[in-house]
């Protein structure tokens, strides 16, 4: 699929039509690129406060989701921020497919390298499918594309 076609395949939606987030059923998939901007750092403890306050149960946090941008500008020091903000064992408590966890978050930087078949991609795909196809729960995946 050419890039132009891929972009056309996205379905533009609106804030009003965005489904209501179900804090028990749905997955909040947080993707920080940390490349090159460092503002993602400030957002992490703030985001964790909201997660806790609303009681969101399914959360995945990814650092290094810079996609087709330059991996060399990734801010590796973000690891200390994410460790402190999100802690241990908070990623996907009901899912065992997230193998590349570092203290509860997913490190895409170690595996991505512009490879669509990277293990991290397969792991996240399985995680998302587990929510969408959750035995008729009709779960949704909401991607906080914090790039």
């Amino acid at each position: 699929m050419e890039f132009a076609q891929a972009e056309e395949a996205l379905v533009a939606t609106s804030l009003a039509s965005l489904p209501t987030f179900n804090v028990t059923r749905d997955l909040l998939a947080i993707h920080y690129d940390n490349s090159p901007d460092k503002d993602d750092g400030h957002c992490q403890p703030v985001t964790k406060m909201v997660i806790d306050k609303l009681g969101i149960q399914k959360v995945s946090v990814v650092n290094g989701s810079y996609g087709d941008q330059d991996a060399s500008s990734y801010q590796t020091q973000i690891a200390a921020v994410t460790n402190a903000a999100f802690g241990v064992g908070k990623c996907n408590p009901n899912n065992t497919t997230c193998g590349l966890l570092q203290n509860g978050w997913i490190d895409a930087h170690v595996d991505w390298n512009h490879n669509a078949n990277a293990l991290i991609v397969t792991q996240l795909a399985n995680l998302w499918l587990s929510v969408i196809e959750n035995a008729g729960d009709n779960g949704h995946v909401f991607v906080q594309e914090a790039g």
Partner: protein
Amino acid sequence: MKTINPSFNAERIHIVQHSSWNEGHYGRGGATLVGPHLHSLGVEYYGEAIVNGGWYNSNTYPHAEIDEFMARANASTYKPGFDAAFAFYPPDRYLAGCTNFCGKRLDFTDTNELMAILKQNKNSFSKMASWFDNYDGAAPPAATCSDGIQNQTETGVDCGGPCSACSSGTTLIDANFASGASGFTYADNMFRSTSNAAFASGVHGTGKLNVTVGGAMTAATSGGWSKSFTTTSSGTVSVSFKYSMSTADGIDPGEWVETLVMINNTLYGASPNDYVRRIEGGGAQVEVTRTFTSASLAAGTHTIKIGAYMNAATAAAETGSMTIDDVLVTKP
């Protein structure tokens, strides 16, 4: 995801972003790796979370407010996270020796997406430190059927699942086509004023309604299934149906097949288009569910039409097919 499960429902994935530049990157990556029909919401103009976050006009942003926010952070149970964040990205980094956009900065722009997803009213904050009034401290209360939140296994806010049933309104059409067309009737030339009946057909089979369009034709064609329903008061109706699409023999660039749905004379497409799905130059769409809410309808009898349109084809084998299943029309 398509490799793992070719029939997964991409319409259950919602990507929210506040930067059109970044939308371009994830648009290419997401649609290529995950597949079409991702729901994409840009919140470029949703504003900056937490009262501008100090990003814009940071040289004039009240330092006292930033200091108050940091004091609240220092006193909160989330202090370790804030300490690490401020060490990584010091708020006062643009003070000493700075010549442009100088000042203290906190940057929470990437919480815009979060606020949009959770439909939190960021505009309720009179100042940055108010964030702590809303989100610091108490653990979430146990979920109940009266907490005003859709949680547990509720299918609506405080209804469904372990709570009392949600009000589902009046069912106007509920057709699964298991044993027949469930009152739907097929007609050629249903859409876009086509007049080429020889190249469209419809049958009931395999528990679904089917439509085939195309061939060695000289003009566009269409065909679809329709059924009438009656409302006793004015208002919108909610519609959902499943559809799939396929094309044969690799239709050429510039030739396309569309899935269309219409109530009375109004098409309800995937905004900004008037079609639900268009496949140009070959390809297929696995079965997915399409849902939408109609415009307000007057009390009376109305007709829903679902089917396919093909703009052009040059060979007998250049056809497009679609299936229709599980049509549900309700009035809230």
